[in-house]
């Protein structure tokens, strides 16, 4: 067992990460030890990142212990860079975290700064001077490179920087020289934010946290007004909206609604969120209240204005799309589906259920195979996802229909039969495991109608362990009206 992480006091006693626990205990007998939980650490880091969303929408993880916040254009909202840094560090320290934070022109430089001193702010162009005296380990390069640098007598970053770039590249690789250049403020590595930047963001902060449902609803509808007004100026409508609720104790809850058509009216946004909040399985828990609510449109589309009043059809399809959005907001987008025909003979794959929000127009224009005129229905009205096995005692004709069968513990005597309709599997897709099916349409003594099939040709496809032909299984696949 080795030490995975330690606090400041332990560090001062001379313990270090990677040290065997027995040695550490020998140095400090009353050491308090906890099991390392990497998953929980990652979870906490991502929770903190959620919380940091309040400062900027661009938050990136720098695992295992760091976060990058791109605060370009955000600092003035918090009274300047120093005030922002102070607010952030204080809030996190209040929660019991040891924080080391810094602001610099490049992410690598800021990270290097946090390794040595907290709270420093480096102006553009001052990077090289700021990290000049720091040890090379602060760069966060591989252990081998750090050791190599030290062995070469390059103790501080300034020493390394004083060497020519080609020398460093030749000795330690291009990656390290790029890292060094970034740290010195020459160019920057892009951070990869956790969430894509939403197209539009509006937010409301509260000096006094809000907790009541009415206040939350009112805030949301005001925000919706502002958001829609902002989008309207650019002729946009929202397809995906996200409301984020920032609790005073740092917990962030995000709620998303999607729409099938771009939304251009704030009343619709309001209604969708009301439906969604109303139907949440685990309701919004305000705790001690929310001190910030943010509404963002993460997917937007240019709205094409259609003539509304004269065309009743347009009105109807709008109404339908709005209804589908409302239902989807309430019970989930995957639960509202339309159907698209598929080019296959296999009954269970002939129809694809697709989300109604996204495929409504496609489904309305789909080409379905025409039915045979003056024929009774050839396909059952109800189809089982998984064909259900039935017991067939015997069939008089070996490859003929059964005379009776047992399904769900009830016996059915066959009165009328039509078939077989043979459906062969798609050999160009399957791995040869699927069997040919012979379907029969069957009516029993009560008038109930079944679609049953024999899985495999008689004495042709199904064999037992000895290689002799075995009797194929029978299944009910659907029920006719």
């Amino acid at each position: 067992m080795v030490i995975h992480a330690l606090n400041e006091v332990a560090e001062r006693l001379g313990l270090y990460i990677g040290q065997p626990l027995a040695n550490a205990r020998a140095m400090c007998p009353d050491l308090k030890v906890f099991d390392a939980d990497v998953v929980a650490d990652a979870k906490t880091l991502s929770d903190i990142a959620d919380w940091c969303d309040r400062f900027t929408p661009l938050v990136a993880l720098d695992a295992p212990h760091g976060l990058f916040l791109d605060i370009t254009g955000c600092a003035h909202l918090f009274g300047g860079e120093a005030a922002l840094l102070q607010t952030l560090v204080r809030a996190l320290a209040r929660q019991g975290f040891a924080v080391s934070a810094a602001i610099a022109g490049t992410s690598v430089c800021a990270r290097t700064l946090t390794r040595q001193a907290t709270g420093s702010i480096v102006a553009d162009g001052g990077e090289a001077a700021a990290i000049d005296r720091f040890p090379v380990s602060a760069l966060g390069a591989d252990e081998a490179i750090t050791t190599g640098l030290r062995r070469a007598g390059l103790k501080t970053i300034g020493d390394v920087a004083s060497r020519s770039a080609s020398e460093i590249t030749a000795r330690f690789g291009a990656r390290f020289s790029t890292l060094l250049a970034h740290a010195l403020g020459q160019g920057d590595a892009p951070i990869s934010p956790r969430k894509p930047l939403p197209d539009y963001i509006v937010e409301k902060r509260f000096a006094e946290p809000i907790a009541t449902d009415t206040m939350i609803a009112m805030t949301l509808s005001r925000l919706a007004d502002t958001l829609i007004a902002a989008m309207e100026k650019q002729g946009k409508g929202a397809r995906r909206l996200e409301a984020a609720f920032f609790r005073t104790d740092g917990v962030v809850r995000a709620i998303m609604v999607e729409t099938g058509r771009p939304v251009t009216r704030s009343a619709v946004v309001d209604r969708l969120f009301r439906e969604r909040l109303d139907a949440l399985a685990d309701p919004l828990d305000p705790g001690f209240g929310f001190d910030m609510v943010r509404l963002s449109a993460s997917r937007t589309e240019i709205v094409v204005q259609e003539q509304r009043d004269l065309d009743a059809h347009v009105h109807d399809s709008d109404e339908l799309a709005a209804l589908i959005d409302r239902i989807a907001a309430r019970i989930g987008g995957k639960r509202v589906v339309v159907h698209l025909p598929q080019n296959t003979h296999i009954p269970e794959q002939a129809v694809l259920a697709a989300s109604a929000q996204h495929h409504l127009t496609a489904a309305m224009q789909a080409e379905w195979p025409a039915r045979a005129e003056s024929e009774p229905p050839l396909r059952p009205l109800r189809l089982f996802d998984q064909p259900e096995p039935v017991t067939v005692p015997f069939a008089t004709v070996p490859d003929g229909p059964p005379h009776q069968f047992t399904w769900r513990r009830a016996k059915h005597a066959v009165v009328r039969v039509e078939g077989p309709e043979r459906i062969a599997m798609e050999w160009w897709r399957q791995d040869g495991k699927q069997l040919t099916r012979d379907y029969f349409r069957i009516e029993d003594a009560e008038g109930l109608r079944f679609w049953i099939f024999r899985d495999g040709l008689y004495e042709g496809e199904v064999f037992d362990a000895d290689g002799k032909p075995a009797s194929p299984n029978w299944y009910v696949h659907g029920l006719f009206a």
Partner: protein
Amino acid sequence: MSGARMSALAILRSQIERIETAEVVHRHDRIALGHSEADAALKGGLARAAIHEVFCEGRQGAAATGFVTGLAGRVTAQRPLLWVRQDFSEMETGALSMSGLAEFGLDPRRVVMVRAADVESALRTSADALACDALGAVVLELWGETRQFDLVASRKLTLAAQSSGVTGLLLRMAAQPMPSTAETRWMLRAAHSPPGPMWSVWGAPRFDAELLRNRHGPCGRWIMEWKCDECQFSEPSAYSQPVAAAPAHRPDPAVLQQRRAG
């Protein structure tokens, strides 16, 4: 009972009648089913802007589905159909198949399916959908007895249907008829295929439909045949060859009891 009390009752009844009918804006909007006797009993056809309930036993689920699909096909008239079903009913009687629906004579392009997890969300969704006048009909498919679908819920659906003019069809599989605000209530069983020559063994869908309750007319029981091509019901097509009466035509003692319910 004294005369005064009787008259008081009569006044109250007429008041209730007036309250109920006053809200019915689309009262005269009826769609003929195609079966003359049934249409006569329904005073011209199935009322739009109302709720109609179709009950069946568990194993008759497909027949009842067929009947409801037929009714929906009659009332929607080129408008979208919203089909709300509970997850559980799909396990019991299978999913509504769109290929089957197309074979039945309906247009699968106009069907939007809502897969509700439970009865509450199914009810809520259908009430919401019934208020949307862009729809032709809303089908609510429930399996088994449900505590949640009581008179209040039924009244909500009826009010929504009356205000928008959308027809609500309730498919209640494996449930006993209960008092509700439905305009009509049916009990469905499968009937045998129409008799025919030996080579045509498989016929058009046929239903043994019993009208258990009809707000504005008599009840009855008919064998109704669905014409997939014309998309309407009809009288059972006769075949000259005499055939033995099928057991489904015989009145069932259990059915006589059910007739009293509601």
